């Protein structure tokens, strides 16, 4: 199904990647996946399906035992210089913020990446300020990391990667453990980043969120990406979802039920609860 145009647009590509952990556990098992430039991608899969393992391949932390990882069309070069290149373009935000933060000061931790890129103090300072601003943590720059809440730590982690100005931002379960308000704010941050042209890939367990937000939804199971779906057409792919044990997004089921009762036109495809409500209230609704 790939057109040549798709290929030139592909930023990150995994081809038949297999990775086993030293203890014999299967991390990835012949996994193939393509991420397009500028798109929003969600990786969804059960616990232990290999999401974190895949992300660590994207950033060159793990090296495939067989198969290939390509970035911007070229196979990843695992030499020191090659990894440096890759990691300055692919930013990885870890699942557990305490694993990522290692300076006790917010500002210092965020400055770590830019300084590793070889930036001078002044430009690093600007990047740090901009990154903290972007995640809404500007007023916390002098605080101690251990006095922050979990959600605030997560934002600092994101800022630490943002400050490196990546092309592709990979976030491992960014929404986990955040309250409703924080999620909304984080989403706004992500939208803003995507608007700036940053390609996003994030892991989640929430199919409703994935349907609402993503362009492409990749389904993982058993260390393999079994399907990459267009979010806009997800409603037709119920079988692919149920094959990995996921339900259809609630809003799709609701829209179908409303359609069956003649309350909503069948052509209406709300992606979220609020869109659905707006359609029911709006002039497009059939009857009321």
């Amino acid at each position, binding site marked *: 199904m790939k057109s040549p145009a798709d290929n030139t647009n592909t930023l990150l590509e995994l081809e038949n990647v297999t990775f086993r952990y030293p203890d014999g556990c299967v991390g990835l098992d012949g996994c193939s996946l393509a991420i397009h430039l500028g798109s929003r991608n969600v990786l969804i899969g059960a616990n232990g399906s290999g999401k974190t393992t895949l992300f660590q391949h994207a950033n060159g932390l793990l090296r495939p035992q067989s198969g290939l990882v390509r970035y911007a069309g070229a196979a990843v070069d695992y030499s020191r210089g090659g990894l440096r290149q890759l990691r*300055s373009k692919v930013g990885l935000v870890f699942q557990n913020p305490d694993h990522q933060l290692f300076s006790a000061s917010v500002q210092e931790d965020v400055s770590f990446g830019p300084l*590793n890129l070889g930036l001078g103090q002044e430009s690093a300072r600007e990047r740090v300020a901009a990154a903290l601003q972007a995640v809404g943590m500007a007023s916390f720059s002098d605080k101690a990391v251990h006095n922050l809440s979990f959600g605030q730590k997560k934002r600092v982690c994101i800022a630490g990667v943002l400050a490196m100005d990546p092309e592709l931002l990979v976030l491992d379960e960014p929404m986990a453990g955040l309250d409703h308000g924080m999620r909304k704010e984080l989403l706004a941050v992500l939208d803003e980043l995507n608007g700036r042209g940053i390609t996003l890939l994030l892991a989640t367990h929430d199919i409703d969120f994935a349907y609402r937000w993503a362009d492409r939804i990749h389904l993982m199971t058993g260390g393999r990406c079994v399907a990459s779906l267009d979010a806009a057409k997800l409603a037709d792919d119920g079988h692919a979802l149920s094959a990995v044990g996921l339900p259809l997004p609630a809003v799709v089921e609701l829209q179908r039920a409303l359609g069956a009762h003649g309350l909503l036109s069948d052509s209406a495809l709300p992606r979220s609860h609020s869109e659905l409500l707006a359609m029911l209230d709006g002039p497009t609704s059939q009857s009321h």
Partner: protein
Amino acid sequence: MLIEQSAYANRWRKASPAAKGIFALGGFCAAFAAGAPAAAVVVALLIAAATLAGAGIPSGRYLRAVTPAFFFLGISCLSLAFSLRLDDGTGELSLALTPSGMQKVAEVSARSIAALTALLFLVLTTPLTDLIALFRRLKTPEVLLEIMVLCYRMLFVLSAAVHDTLSAQSARLGYATPRLAIRSLGGLAANLTLQVWQRAHALHMAAQARNNDGPLRFLEPVFANSGRDAIIATAAGSALVALAVGWS
């Protein structure tokens, strides 16, 4: 924790750490230069006043921070004041309080108190992250700085891990009887060892993911008015030394 909290929340948090360091150093010099015990005590009182009134550290908290130090100081003074004497004739062992001993105790303890207040001033007003940045500017060897950075951070990560594991164990009656407590404690130690190892590995991965290739580099914090602060601190520190030397 007590010191930690004050360091992040005091009136002089934004003052340049270099200035605070200079003032503390001035205090130290004054403590050593002080000829008479009274001079050292006055120096101590002045520094304590600066900490309480200037930096705005609550006095209750200050007292709690100095008490353990005073306790140790008291014990060592006792051992200085009394001398053990073996009487030649009777072969009896006796404790004696000597005037020269008393004089010495007064000198030593007054100086220690002054030095203590100077040190407390620094740590109560300056977070360790600022101090580490200061050491970095003073060209402390990188290895030491990295160890400090990581230890300081890991201290909190690990204390959280200890706390979590302890509460998880207690919640399932891990410490209900002494026997169980010993077993649980063993489990805690084993679990922590593993965690330390995993954390170290995770941090290494995180450093690599952000393109680290060896030395840990961080931004130097900037402090507005650091020049002015340094001048004031130098003046205040010199005044302390002058006072200590001139007292007689």
